[in-house]
């Protein structure tokens, strides 16, 4: 378990984050704090700016304005203005990014074990035996049969590829994980399995996560807090169950009432 006393400052502090595409708004004036161990969901329809926001937060896109302060050894450090090598290092160590399409986050012509081991080598691991052992351990943790470790992800199902991507990302023990539609395009039964896995990992590793999705059922089960976006702006924030059960903004009410019940 995490020690509650040491986490009384935000892991991430975002203020005034803005990205324009020419005259069009990608996202504008977004601000929030994320605390250690917290999972925040960002929902909104296609084109609402949620993926732009995620990419600005994760350093994949340069925002036009705003700050993204990440707690580095107790010092809130602006990741927008830090040097490119420093940001890339963060992306290999404290941060992880799970893409919607596993192929974007994996090397498809490298074995499953190699995919996981590669990220360890990127942070300096050199001992083959240890790397192989860690890779094996993580491949089992994400419920990929151990005898598939030498297979390439091209031979994996969609759900297995997604779990492999998660193993590759988490093997280096990040503190913050960005996820872009992590369950998108998967069968419902496979989604449930992935949700269960993600929840367990968040709990065990004390991870913080920011999850972009259009699936309200996913955020209800995974996210502590919710941010609703429309046209590049945050229109509502709050506790996940409160926003979903008692939405205040017209757009959130529309979003919640549009979900088909099963």
């Amino acid at each position: 378990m995490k020690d509650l006393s040491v986490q009384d400052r935000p892991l991430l502090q975002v203020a005034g984050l803005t990205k324009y595409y020419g005259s069009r708004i990608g996202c504008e004036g977004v601000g929030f704090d994320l605390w250690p161990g917290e999972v925040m969901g960002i929902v909104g329809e296609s084109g609402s700016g949620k993926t732009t926001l995620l990419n600005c937060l994760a350093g994949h896109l340069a925002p036009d304005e705003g700050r993204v302060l990440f707690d580095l050894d107790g010092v809130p450090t602006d990741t927008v203005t830090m040097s490119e090598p420093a940001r890339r290092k963060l992306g290999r160590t404290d941060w992880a990014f799970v893409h919607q399409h596993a192929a974007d986050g994996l090397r498809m012509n490298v074995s499953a074990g190699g995919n996981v081991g590669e990220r360890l080598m990127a942070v300096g691991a050199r001992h083959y035996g240890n790397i192989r052992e860690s890779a094996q351990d993580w491949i089992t943790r994400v419920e990929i049969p151990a005898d598939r470790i030498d297979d390439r992800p091209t031979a994996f199902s969609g759900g297995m590829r997604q779990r492999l991507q998660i193993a590759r990302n988490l093997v280096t023990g990040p503190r913050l994980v960005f996820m872009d539609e992590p369950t998108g395009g998967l069968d419902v039964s496979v989604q449930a399995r992935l949700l269960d896995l993600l929840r367990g990992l968040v709990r065990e590793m004390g991870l913080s996560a920011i999850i972009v999705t259009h699936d309200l059922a996913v955020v209800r089960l995974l996210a502590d807090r919710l941010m609703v976006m429309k046209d590049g702006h945050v229109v509502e924030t709050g506790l996940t169950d409160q926003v979903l059960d008692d939405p205040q903004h017209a757009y959130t009410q529309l979003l919640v009432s549009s979900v088909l019940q099963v």
Partner: protein
Amino acid sequence: MSGGREQAMIRIDNLSKTFTLHNQGSTVIPVMANAAFSVAPGECVALTGESGAGKSTLMRMIYGNYLAAGGSIRIGDTDIVTATPREILRLRRHTLGYVSQFLRVVPRVPTLDVVAEPLLATGTPAGAARAAAEALLARLNIPERLWSLSPTTFSGGEQQRVNIARGFAYAYPALLLDEPTASLDAQNRETVLRLIEEAKARGAAIVGIFHDEAARSRLCDREVDVTAFRPDRAA
């Protein structure tokens, strides 16, 4: 009727609630005004009033699931109405439990883990948490062969009992119970009533909705008729 307001665990003052339906002509529906009552440690208060009077709405507001329009809901030192999400999450983890009528869980998670989760979340070691969960499930007559399965496929009564086991696993100082004895047979009903009595005895402040009148009179020290909090009454 508001005895013990000084050392109340739950204290509600001047609470109001409106729903604004933006997509239905921005209709504003006031549903509650001037709600006030308090619950002392070890006390059980029943919310009464006919169906639609606002019992569940009030319960959801106390849990922070519905936003209040005004007033205050103090649970210990925290005012739910003005608390940040982070403060409410912490309160729900350590102080305020809620047994709803419906079980909502991640599919595939074994029943034993579902019940042990509130203990794990508050730092109980895994072994002790599982042992406590096992004891509760056994007490509530959930057959051991079901413990390793997800409760999503269980019958309504079994799900309700898993929900109760989960709600009573951790000793919350404040507890909200929405129809805890609904859809239970006589034996399990008795077990649940005893669990509630034990929670009272250890000092939990309890707010409950009980359509089961015998249960209500056995458990509850006072009744609060929420009809009195209707906006047209309060005006």
